[in-house]
């Protein structure tokens, strides 16, 4: 196996382990939503984002905004592994007086650009950051992950209209398309299809990838801009609960919690040891 791919796989495994630990210890919801985004986050934080954990407010940094704020554990795990804050903070996720909230929350957490949780806020904010980059002739890029359920929000479509018109080719949106939203599959709620055609018609460059294939993720995000003057929309086909058989492709694991036995099973399936994660 290629070393780079091996590194990505190792990173993704670690993130999955910490995500499971956090949602188990916090008995929090959204295990499935976190696991579907792990591989995208692993690639972003390993090789794509130009950021500095020692200087999180560096003004020329790339910005990453997790608009699907319920995918918080996966972001915290990646930030901790990158060195933005001590690994021990992960133990405080969802806990009373903890450092890390159940939604992506900036309160004194280095590396978080925007507190999210209410859907449809990340992309308009990102348009503002990207526009500032253009007006101020900065080189940074702005990356956003949106969920498929979140695509229902009208505010996103205001932004989809805005970004190509203003030629924000420094803006990249990744759709974590796991096909399941809160209560039911996307196609049985408010079908997004044909989503690629819709975004193309709005003026975006659209790429479609396997959201768990690290090589595909990396090549979709390199180099930026893909096409001068156009923002990029990456449709990442993912599996909700990816890596844990009983969570995969289920509606229930948007909300369900694991008991000790299921946690054991999840770690076994991922071929990782609980002890390595301080459990």
């Amino acid at each position: 196996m290629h070393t780079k791919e091996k590194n990505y796989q190792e990173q993704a495994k670690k993130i999955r382990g910490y995500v499971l630990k956090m949602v188990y210890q916090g008995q929090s919801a959204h295990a499935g939503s976190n696991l579907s985004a792990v591989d995208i986050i692993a690639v972003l934080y390993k090789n794509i984002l130009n950021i500095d954990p020692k200087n999180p407010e560096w003004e020329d940094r790339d910005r990453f905004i997790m608009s699907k704020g319920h995918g918080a554990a996966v972001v915290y795990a990646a930030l901790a592994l990158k060195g933005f804050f001590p690994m021990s903070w992960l133990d405080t996720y969802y806990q009373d007086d903890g450092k890390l909230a159940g939604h992506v929350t900036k309160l004194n957490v280095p590396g978080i650009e925007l507190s999210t949780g209410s859907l449809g806020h990340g992309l308009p904010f990102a348009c503002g950051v990207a526009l500032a980059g253009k007006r101020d002739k900065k080189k940074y890029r702005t990356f956003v992950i949106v969920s498929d359920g979140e695509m229902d929000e009208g505010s996103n479509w205001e932004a989809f209209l805005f970004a190509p018109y203003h030629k924000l080719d420094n803006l990249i949106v990744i759709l974590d398309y796991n096909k399941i939203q809160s209560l039911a599959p996307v196609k049985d709620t408010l079908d997004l299809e044909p989503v690629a055609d819709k975004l193309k018609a709005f003026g975006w460059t659209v790429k479609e990838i396997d959201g768990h294939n690290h090589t595909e993720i990396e090549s979709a995000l390199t180099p930026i801009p893909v096409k001068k003057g156009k923002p990029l929309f990456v449709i990442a086909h993912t599996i909700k609960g990816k890596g844990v058989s009983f969570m995969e492709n289920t509606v229930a694991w948007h909300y369900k919690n694991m008991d000790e036995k299921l946690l054991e099973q999840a770690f076994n399936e991922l071929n990782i040891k609980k002890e390595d994660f301080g459990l």
Partner: protein
Amino acid sequence: MRNAFIKTLTEVAEKNKNIFFITGDLGYSVIEDFQAQFPNQFLNAGVAEQNMTGIAAGLASTGKTVFTYSIGNFPTLRCLEQIRSDVCYHNHNVKIVAVGGGFHYGALASTHHPTEDLAILRSLPNMTVIAPNDPIEASLATKAVIKKRGPCYLRLSMSKRIHQTPPDFKIGKAITVREGNDISMITTGGMLEPAIEAAEFLSKENINVEVISMHTIKPIDKETILKTAQKTNAVVTIEEHTILGGLGGAVAEILMENMSKRIIFQRIGVNDTFAKKIGSRDFLRKEYGLTPETIVERVKSLLSNK
């Protein structure tokens, strides 16, 4: 007031390149000069207030002082959650400007009447709420919100010029425009003008009114409220806004929590209703009891119980 606002903003934007102005596709014949002079500091976000406010927060996160501008309820209620979460929660340096406070857009009817905005915006943590009483205050308020870091709401309305010389304007510090001993009128958002007219009329009947411009609703000027209430023992609040939770609510909170003696108090404003009749601002003000004449009536009947 909107002309005073944009004139002041244009003056400041010349020197301060961090100023950024976003309109939600409104401001015909008002914003063109700004746009022409400072294209790099200007954006028309289109008729999309949620996106506009998110963009404003994003721009502010890079260090800019961002103004969002529209009329009526569009820059406030339409995108209230963006204001709450993206602006206030993050304490981003965004200034929200609404034109047409109260019944300004009279015959355009209730969709275009901001009559609950002060109450709603006042409840948001980190938010400063200012409703100037005349064009001079609007200009001074514009300068003041630029100096103050963090979210501000500037609610502009229409009034003739009241202050002949520029008053000492500080956010959170009321301006006593006229002194009196019999009753205090606390006004906001362009209601200073009818209040002064009412006070002048009442003075002929030997009722001496203290008239106060409470341009800042939040933080409210507790000291001035208590001082004037101690002095006159009778307070009315006057606002072109619902009597629930705006200026009247804010003043009532201060009085209830701090006054040991009983005083007469009444809120003059829109009595928990939408405009149910069609007409100009003057017509609607008359209909909903916000003219100098109706204020005089209310004050006289109130003082007869003193």
